[in-house]
């Protein structure tokens, strides 16, 4: 071996060269990542810090903020100051909107899971050539314009929409059923918007399923149902969690769906926040509301990390 012939001096020299190379490559790699990090840092992270600061300032009368420390934004979230005797009164209006949004998001997640799991499983069990087409079919709505897709739902459920026209023509009803601008409309719109977000992560997890395990379960006299509940579902847990998160987070912060299908009557958190920056003219309150939403998202992410890390993944 040549190594044996090398003197310790040469070896240490080589090592220092190598260390030098690693160091320069680390510097090079850091430099390469810098443009992306600077852009996101300045125009993505810094704005988040700014709204943290803004949430502790006083509102300026015509929008914007006054540089004056105040916890009013957080107080206003739960209380309203009485105009006459200046006492705080518990006003749960905002809290109710948060709870409503939470409920919408939970129902959306559950229904998407109930529909999405069988769909993803069916896709994953197709022959490979067919599988690609199924994935493309789900991928297209995943990336299609949400505003336009929501508009499509609006056209169908309007008073003069397709459903009402059809029911009227069939004589089932004699005046249109009001569906637009109701909670039902928002719920339907959320389901429609986020179903693909559930199917795709579930699919990528089910695609890797080892079907020998299912065969083994059948060999051990498991029924079809048992195979589903005791083998397939536990094995696809990472996909289920990822899918639920991908639906829950955007559904909780949904803005377009309630804006168009709720008609400004039935608000969700997203519209409430936007309102403070528009007609509400209370930026600090909007910032506080945004941060409270962010906190909810972080809790969801925390559960995701806790449930997925430190476990041996199958496959």
């Amino acid at each position, binding site marked *: 071996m040549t190594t044996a012939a090398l003197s310790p001096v040469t070896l240490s020299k080589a090592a220092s060269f190598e260390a030098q190379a*690693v160091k320069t490559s*680390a510097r090079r*790699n*850091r430099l*390469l*990542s810098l*443009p*992306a*990090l600077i*852009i*996101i840092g300045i*125009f*993505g*992270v*810094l*704005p988040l810090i*700014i*709204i943290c600061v803004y949430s502790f300032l006083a509102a300026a009368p015509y929008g*914007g903020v006054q540089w004056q420390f105040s916890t009013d934004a957080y107080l206003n979230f739960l209380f309203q100051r009485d105009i006459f005797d200046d006492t705080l009164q518990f006003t749960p209006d905002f809290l109710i909107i948060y709870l409503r949004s939470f409920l919408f998001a939970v129902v959306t997640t559950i229904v998407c899971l109930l*529909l999405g799991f*069988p*769909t993803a*499983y*069916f*896709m994953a*069990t197709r022959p490979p050539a067919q599988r690609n087409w199924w994935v*493309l*079919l789900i991928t*297209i709505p*995943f*990336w*299609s*314009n*949400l*505003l*336009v897709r929501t*508009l*499509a739902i609006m*056209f*169908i459920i309007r008073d003069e*929409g397709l459903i009402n*026209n059809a029911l009227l023509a069939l004589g089932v009803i004699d005046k249109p059923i009001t569906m637009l601008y109701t909670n039902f409309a928002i719920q339907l719109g959320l389901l*429609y918007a986020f*179903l693909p977000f559930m199917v795709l992560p579930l699919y990528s997890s089910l695609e890797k399923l080892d079907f020998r395990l*299912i*065969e083994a379960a059948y060999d051990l006299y498991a029924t*079809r149902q048992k195979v589903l509940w005791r083998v*397939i579902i536990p094995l696809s847990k990472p996909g289920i969690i990822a899918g639920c998160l991908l639906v829950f*987070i955007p559904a909780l*912060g949904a*803005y*377009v769906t309630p804006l168009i299908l709720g008609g400004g009557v039935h608000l969700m958190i*997203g519209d409430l926040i*936007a309102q403070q920056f528009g007609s509400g003219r209370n*930026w600090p309150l*909007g910032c506080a509301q*945004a941060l409270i*939403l*962010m906190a909810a998202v972080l809790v969801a*992410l925390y559960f995701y990390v806790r449930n997925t890390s430190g476990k041996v993944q199958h496959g």
Partner: protein
Amino acid sequence: MAEPRAIDIKDQPGFRSIAVICVLVLYVPVLILMIFSLNSGSLVTHWEGVTLGWYGSALLNEEFHSAARNTLIISVTATIVSTICATLAAIGMTRVKPWRGIAAAFMIINLPLMVPEIITAVATLSFFALIAGTFGLNFGIGNLVLAHTVFCIPFAYMPIRARLEDMDLTLEYAAADLYATPWNAFKRITLPLLVPGIMSGAALAFIVSFDDFTITQLVAGPGQTTLPLYIWNQIRRPMTPEINAISTILLLVSILFVSVSFLIARRRAK
């Protein structure tokens, strides 16, 4: 299999019907919207006959032109900038010796994906209002370009990183063995192999920018109407199938770019 089975082990009862229903539910409303763009009547819900007239009136509309121009300026610039940044970052962060801070860097790149859009929207609005108020800085439509670039970077980054992770390292070693300088090895081996990932990433960045409504609506100043904002303005007026025609155009652009990105990504998997 040793013996024929009475049952298909992969099958679960009812799953096929649910899958078919899901696809129908996803496509029927959009298809109806598209079909009504061909309606010769002036109502968005009452069918009267076939015409392409609404596409004509949409395409001749001056407001549509300016919205399309704004959208293209923003999307194309944001796509180019974000794809370049994402490519560099992916090269600096994938298959490398972990450098100090790489975990934090990874988090920062993925941050725009984790923050709900409405929060990004109001944060960006506050940021631009602050620099306009404090330094008198206003980049005009550049504000929107910057806001879009931020959330385009992670979308461009993902496929590029995936491509890098799949790439055969031995090819680069071979190049190095044949006395290629690192730069030459990169230019002649790594970059050509990376092109499909970059294209796929650029296509995704373009779609998310082209389709964005929430952030654009809050950050856009007067006269910065993009196509999604233009549709939103139309919704609030008495609607004609012209809105269906514009919506259809938007959907077709998305479908085109998704399919391109998808097919490029699939070819690699073959």
